[in-house]
């Protein structure tokens, strides 16, 4: 057998052994999902959000969400730093046919509306800030495909977007640190909990969802615009 063949067999063998070992050990140790009842027991009363998942990642584990927003911001800044300095290709301003443009003019505001819905109602129904931001960025992406990236950059000034990103991050950090001023531990709740199921419930989960939606929207759009700018077209 050739060396290459041998190498492939060796690699696949080790990986199969790894997967087999983990799989068999995990199944044989009989995981019991009934052990993990803590989070269901009193999550709704304590956080005030009828969406338990939102209650967890925006109340109990808010630090994780803050770190995740920071990771996202670093990614956006990194992409911009690297692609800003490369020479982008200069291609003419391409845009699509009228059918596409008309359809997009209808779809894009719908996407923005959905973003607002998911962000504002994130603590009552499925959704949340991250999904909302991605939806809005997709809506902008449709518009960019239809009307050309140069037109989009003329409308949405990249410098102002960068400033907006930093401001949102500062506001988020200030909100998170605000309880410290009142003498309590940061990252705890400031706003009242309210009755679960109503719009104004869940304390500051609503505020966080809106802030995160805006941040992800601006950030995802910045990444798309950076890639498109670098390539010269979308």
């Amino acid at each position: 057998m050739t060396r290459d063949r041998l190498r492939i067999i060796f690699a696949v063998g080790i990986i199969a052994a790894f997967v087999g070992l983990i799989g068999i050990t995990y199944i044989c140790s009989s995981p019991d999902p009934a052990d993990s009842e803590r989070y269901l027991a009193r999550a709704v009363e304590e956080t005030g959000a009828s969406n338990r998942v939102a209650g967890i990642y925006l109340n109990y584990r808010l630090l994780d969400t803050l770190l995740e927003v920071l990771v996202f911001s670093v990614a956006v800044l990194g992409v911009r730093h690297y692609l800003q300095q490369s020479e982008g290709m200069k291609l003419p301003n391409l845009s699509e046919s009228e059918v596409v443009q008309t359809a997009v003019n209808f779809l894009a505001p719908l996407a923005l509306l959905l973003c607002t819905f998911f962000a504002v109602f994130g603590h009552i129904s499925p959704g949340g800030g991250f999904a909302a931001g991605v939806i809005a960025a997709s809506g902008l992406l449709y518009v960019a495909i239809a009307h050309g990236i140069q037109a989009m950059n003329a409308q949405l000034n990249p410098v102002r977007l960068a400033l907006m990103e930093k401001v949102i991050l500062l506001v988020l950090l200030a909100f998170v640190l605000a309880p410290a001023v009142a003498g309590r531990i940061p990252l705890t709740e400031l706003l009242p909990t309210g009755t679960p199921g109503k719009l104004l419930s869940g304390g500051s989960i609503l505020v966080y969802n809106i802030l995160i939606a805006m941040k992800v929207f601006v950030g995802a759009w910045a990444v798309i615009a950076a890639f498109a700018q670098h390539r010269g077209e979308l």
Partner: protein
Amino acid sequence: MAAIIAFVLFGIGVVALVLRRDLVIKLLALGLINAASILFLVSIGDRPGARAPIQLPGDLGIVADPLPQALVLSAIVVNFAILALALVFVMILVERYHTTDSIRIEQEMAREADDQETPCL
């Protein structure tokens, strides 16, 4: 059941990461590995007959475990960030070496190592 699928996907991802030479395929394999571990996490919260963990008025059925879903939200965003930046780096390398073959890039770099290495700051 979903856990087994997750492990198999993990294995396929690692096989692709090791055996394929193309850098973009390696990044896709990395994405598959991340997706497999995320699937494994979500599968833990599954109970027979469960529905989404949102409390609707008057409904007392079995509800899935919300914690793995919250963890997975963060994991997905982090993995997206890593893939985006890795892609940018692959783009820079491709612009420099005009190939996405990882072995050829390593050979080119070894050849350049004999030339003057610019001192860093």
